């Protein structure tokens, strides 16, 4: 582990004990994420990518190995509110307006009303939702709700953003648009992002590093460092470099599957 590693996992494993016997959600996972990286975890359902993200977030406890987040344990990192977490569903509270949803973590942190208001305004502007403060979640489209939930994660001002298939439930046009916005946001804020997805184009388009995972037991097969420039537009998806990385990811995924039957 180097000093600049935001996340460092060594020989990490997690076994769930279910009625049908033990399930190896993660086995021998080694991962290091440097500060400022955009790392995608990609793999089929059940490969442990969400579990790995939840371990980083201290929402699951590993049963073996060790993991360091921001130089401390995930538990201490969570207590220090070192990360923002974006769920697959926007998970906005239906009884709060958009502004009050974004203010929720700030209320819990005990910030002053003035500071809360400033941060809400700032982060709404970042996700292009200014003017929607007083709307309730159900009055917004799915894409706008997810943007609001990203603003809520950013409002905590964490260095690390953990995103669990945030655009998985959205249609492709909205997803492309939000991917582009997310890249700009990442470039502007220089945060470290760990992003779970099962879309190859999404992973290749967004990431500096693509971590390919495979199920039973959940493990890492390949880590691909992307040669693409940090800031990209959607047209890059037609270039040979892009297609080459996408091909390597697809090969990795296929290799992972061949272990099964």
């Amino acid at each position, binding site marked *: 582990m180097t000093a600049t590693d935001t996340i460092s996992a060594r020989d990490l494993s997690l076994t769930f004990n279910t009625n049908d016997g033990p399930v190896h959600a993660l086995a021998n996972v080694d991962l290091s994420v440097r500060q400022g990286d955009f790392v995608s975890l990609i793999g089929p359902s059940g490969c442990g990518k969400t579990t790995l993200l939840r371990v980083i*977030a*201290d*929402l699951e406890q590993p049963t073996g190995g060790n993991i360091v987040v921001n130089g401390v344990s995930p538990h201490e990192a*969570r*207590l220090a*509110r070192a*990360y*923002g*977490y974006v*769920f*697959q*569903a926007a*998970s906005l*509270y*239906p*009884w*709060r*307006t958009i502004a009050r949803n974004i203010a*929720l*973590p700030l*209320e*819990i*942190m005990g910030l002053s009303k003035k500071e809360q208001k400033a941060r809400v305004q700032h982060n709404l502007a970042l996700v292009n939702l200014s003017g929607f403060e007083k709307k*309730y979640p159900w009055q917004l489209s799915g894409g706008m709700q997810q943007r609001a939930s990203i603003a809520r994660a950013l409002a*905590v001002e964490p260095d690390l953003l953990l995103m669990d298939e945030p655009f998985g439930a959205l249609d492709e046009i909205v997803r492309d648009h939000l991917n582009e916005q997310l890249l700009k946001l990442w470039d502007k804020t220089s945060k470290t992002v760990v992003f779970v997805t099962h879309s190859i184009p999404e992973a290749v388009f967004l990431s500096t590093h693509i971590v390919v995972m495979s199920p039973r037991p959940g493990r890492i097969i390949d880590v691909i460092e992307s040669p693409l420039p940090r800031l990209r537009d959607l047209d890059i998806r037609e270039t040979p470099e892009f297609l080459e990385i996408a091909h390597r990811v697809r090969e990795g995924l296929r290799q992972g599957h061949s272990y099964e039957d």
Partner: protein
Amino acid sequence: MAIFVVWIVAAVFLNTPFQNDTYARGKLENVPFSQLVTDTLNQERPVLPAPHQVGAELYNTTVKKKITSKRSLIFHSWITLSTALLGFVIGTALGVLLAVAIVHNRALDKSLMPWIIASQTIPILAIAPMIIVVLNAMGIQGLLPKAFISTYLSFFPVAVGMVKGLRSPEHSHIDLMHTYSASAPQTLWKLRIPAAMPYLFTSMKVAIAISMVGAIVGELPTGAVAGLGARLLAGSYYGQTIQIWSALVMASLLAALLVGLVSLANHFVLKRMGMS
């Protein structure tokens, strides 16, 4: 409409035996059927009073009597109503507190819940006099002992409903609070309680209706001094069926009104929360 038709037919049918006895004593024979109907619907102490008799009694005892009069149904209704409301407020508070404790403590969940359910299997008519007597011995008199019987009944639906409501937030909503490292009270106030509001109002509708029942039952063993329960008891002592029925009608009107008020509050609160 259909209810009134059934009611009148039933009244004629049920009151006929007594009316026939009356005719026999008066040596009246071959009374025409129309006369029989008129008479059965206008007895002084019918087995089943006719709607218009109850209506007239209600009118006489509400509009025509002074509110302070002991014969005013409004006076009695107010006593029952205030008892029921006091019991309902205490019961709701108790139910919510129990639910909060149960949701936060696994041991309480296992140990308290069976007792809460067992408490409702005891017939309220059996335990009501005990509560009154015990509290009286402790020097607590007046409205409170009767209100406690309402509480005894009304805390149950609130406790059960709120346990369900406080546990209703989705997993991701609770995980979100974890990622903010929110304290248990913060999670309670900012997530669990708002999420439980629809459940609270649903159980409050049940609770307020049985609070009325509790208040009426509570008035029976107190010697039937005042209240709708007292009117029921006094009516049955003296065979005043019309008085009993008018008290019953009054009680159900009040219960309907209270449930309506809770529904109204439900509507406004959820609207303010942006949830309806």
